[in-house]
């Protein structure tokens, strides 16, 4: 039964842009119903347990983690990331900041934390569970990443530059697939990611539960997987490159209402 799903035999060709798709896609009803029925709460629950669990050499929880709104303040915190953090001197997205908190509060090493940054259906990663839990507390908040600090401006500018930077064995840039409206890769519509109208509904629903693989996916994973398909070397988790691309896309989505965690196909 599921073999056919793996054969990648798509039947329906969509030419709608995602923005228009919200009203017109034949899948709109399916996506709405699947979102309502997705087991997101399960993962958020595990994320909450991990947030409160005492771990690491310092046997501490993450409850005092400062995601930009003060220690332990979770409401709306995710919607205001990425942003510049004075204590590290870097622009950080949620996952980078979580790694920072695990290191500083729990005394754990970066190597140990990032041994398995991306999980699978059988075993999501700690960072994926935590991302779901933290992101939920921003549901309904306006997306408002940092844009005023010079470092935040730098991150945006680097992200913009990287977006059209051709690289890797096959000469691709992000714009190869995401630079024009109305294109498809196989049967999947490709959003034009430098268009705020097209990128904001996507940014508003990460992290997400991926229906086709029953796994949790985050923005760090999304960037990593795009580079994998671009046939580059592997981007380092939470590096300036990855965080700047996330900053670029999130700033493009500024002002939209965060409605995640969501589902992806």
């Amino acid at each position, binding site marked *: 039964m599921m073999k056919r799903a793996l054969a990648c035999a798509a039947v329906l060709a969509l030419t709608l842009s995602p923005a228009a798709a919200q009203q017109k896609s034949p899948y709109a009803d399916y996506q709405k119903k699947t979102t309502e029925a997705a087991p997101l709460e399960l993962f958020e629950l595990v994320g909450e347990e991990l947030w409160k669990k005492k771990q690491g050499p310092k046997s501490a929880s993450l409850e005092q983690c400062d995601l930009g709104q003060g220690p332990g303040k979770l409401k709306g915190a995710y919607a205001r990331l990425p942003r510049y953090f004075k204590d590290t001197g870097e622009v950080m997205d949620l996952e980078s900041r979580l790694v920072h908190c695990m290191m500083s509060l729990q005394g754990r090493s970066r190597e140990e934390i990032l041994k398995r940054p991306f999980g699978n259906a059988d075993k999501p990663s700690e960072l994926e569970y935590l991302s779901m839990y933290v992101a939920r507390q921003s549901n309904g908040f306006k997306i408002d990443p940092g844009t005023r*600090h010079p470092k935040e401006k730098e991150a945006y500018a680097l992200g913009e530059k990287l977006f059209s930077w*051709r690289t890797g064995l096959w000469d691709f840039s992000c714009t190869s697939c995401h630079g024009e409206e109305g294109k498809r890769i*196989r049967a999947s519509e490709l959003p034009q990611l430098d268009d705020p109208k097209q990128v904001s509904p996507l940014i508003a629903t990460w992290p997400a539960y991926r229906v086709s693989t029953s796994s949790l996916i985050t923005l760090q994973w999304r960037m990593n997987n795009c580079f994998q398909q671009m*046939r*580059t070397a592997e*981007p380092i988790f939470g590096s*300036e490159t990855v965080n700047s691309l996330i900053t670029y896309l999130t700033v493009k989505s500024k002002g939209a209402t965060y409605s995640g965690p969501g589902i992806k196909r």
Partner: protein
Amino acid sequence: MITKSTLGAAVAALVLSPAASAEPSAREVQEILKRDFRPRGQAKMDRMDQDAVQRLCTTTNNKPPADLAKKLEADQMRTIDFPKGSLMGNWKEGAKIAWSGQGMQWHEDPKLPGGGGCYNCHEMSPQREAFGTIGPSLAAFGKKRGNGIEMQKYVYGKIYNAKAYNLCSEMPRFGTTNSLTEEQIKDLTAYLLDPASPVNK
């Protein structure tokens, strides 16, 4: 902390125009990429070095000056190794290569044969309804254009190194990068040109 950084930003905005202060140079971007990636599996760090073609297409937003493009296209043409005789292989093998999207990724076994991933971007045979639209439709390609030796040479060369024909094409250089073998490219050529191929039905 928030007040402070806001203040800092305001001061910075007064002193410097944000675009001028923030925009990294191509050299800086290249250095950042070398720092922020690591080799994994078959994907080594040399993949992060922008070559002249990638650099020119990036800096000119894929619209290079004509004379420079001509020169670089000629360089790229010299990378193509045209075999003697017919360039048409087995279209049935070509079909498999066109359908497969595998190959050259860091998690993949480099010993396994790679695919062309052609359907990611092109319409080809009516047998496959899930095709992309990043590249032009290649439906009935040989039927429309014939399959003489000049056409064979064009198709073979285009798959081998698309940049020899259109410098800033989005199509990978399958032969030049050793992503496909000579035999595989011949099979794909047959898939596009052989009258028996489903592409031409």
